[in-house]
């Protein structure tokens, strides 16, 4: 029972630190790294969160696609590559076209279940076209693993993370800490299985 008390105390302290201090925000900024926006062969918007049953993109997915479209409008690359589940890609494509991105400038990848599969499929799509230098759009916490997988797949990656500072209220910080824990676990799993 004594060890349970220590588990409980540690859990309580971690909860207070996660919810009521900016530690999660600092980790978020650190994981984002430094953005490197510049001339590239393509803008790759990684999938995240999918779309709801009514076809509306989730908050995370929406942020990413807006970032990608903004980079396209800034003429940083001639191609916008949208990745994700079939519903997510469909909704992203409709949004991009609605905001003026021509269909001829959009490529899609929609059959991947995992980030590793996503990186493989993006490689099969873009590398034969000679599109090696990419602006990679992902959330700050997803950037390290996504970037590492894409670089391993043969791309030269310029990171273009979405907003880096993260949320400021306790509930959202707890959600961010949960997502960071998931991402670090996924990183460890990919290292163990040799994917990274």
């Amino acid at each position, binding site marked *: 029972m004594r060890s349970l008390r*220590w*588990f*409980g105390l540690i*859990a*309580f302290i971690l909860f207070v630190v996660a919810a*009521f201090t900016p530690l999660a925000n600092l980790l978020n900024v650190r994981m984002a790294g430094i953005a490197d926006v510049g001339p590239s062969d393509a803008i790759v918007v990684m999938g995240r969160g999918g779309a709801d049953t009514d076809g509306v993109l989730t908050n995370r997915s929406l942020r990413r696609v807006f970032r990608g479209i903004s980079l396209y409008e800034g003429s940083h690359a001639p191609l916008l590559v949208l990745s994700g589940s079939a519903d997510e890609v469909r909704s992203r494509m409709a949004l991009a076209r609605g905001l003026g991105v021509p269909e001829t400038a959009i490529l899609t990848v929609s059959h991947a279940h995992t980030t590793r599969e996503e990186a493989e499929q993006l490689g099969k799509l873009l590398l034969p076209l000679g599109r090696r230098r990419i602006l990679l759009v992902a959330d700050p916490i997803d950037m390290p693993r996504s970037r590492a997988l894409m670089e391993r797949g043969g791309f030269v990656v310029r990171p273009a993370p979405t907003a880096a500072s993260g949320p*400021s209220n*306790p509930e959202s910080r707890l959600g961010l800490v*949960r997502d960071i824990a998931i991402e670090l676990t996924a990183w460890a799993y990919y290292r163990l299985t040799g994917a990274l």
Partner: protein
Amino acid sequence: MDSLFILGIIALTSLVAYFWGTRGFGLRRERLTQATIEVLECLGLAVVFLVGNLAAGVALTLGLRALTGRFISIYWLNDISVLALSLLQALVLHSWLRRSN
């Protein structure tokens, strides 16, 4: 600012509960430490259940993927209900242990 507001509310209602308990229900102050320790034990048990539930979920997901060849998402485990139910499991087991002792 919202963090301070929330912590302030919790501190206030905790104080109210303390005075209500000691003056209204005649609770003894010396027992508060023991009660806090029991809560920490329960919390620790909840952590054990949470880790166990997640480990079981991951093992089952990867096992089913390997056996069936179908993709099953590990993100199904990414749900607040796992945390809530782990806490419930801990409460039940902790109460059971106390009664057994």
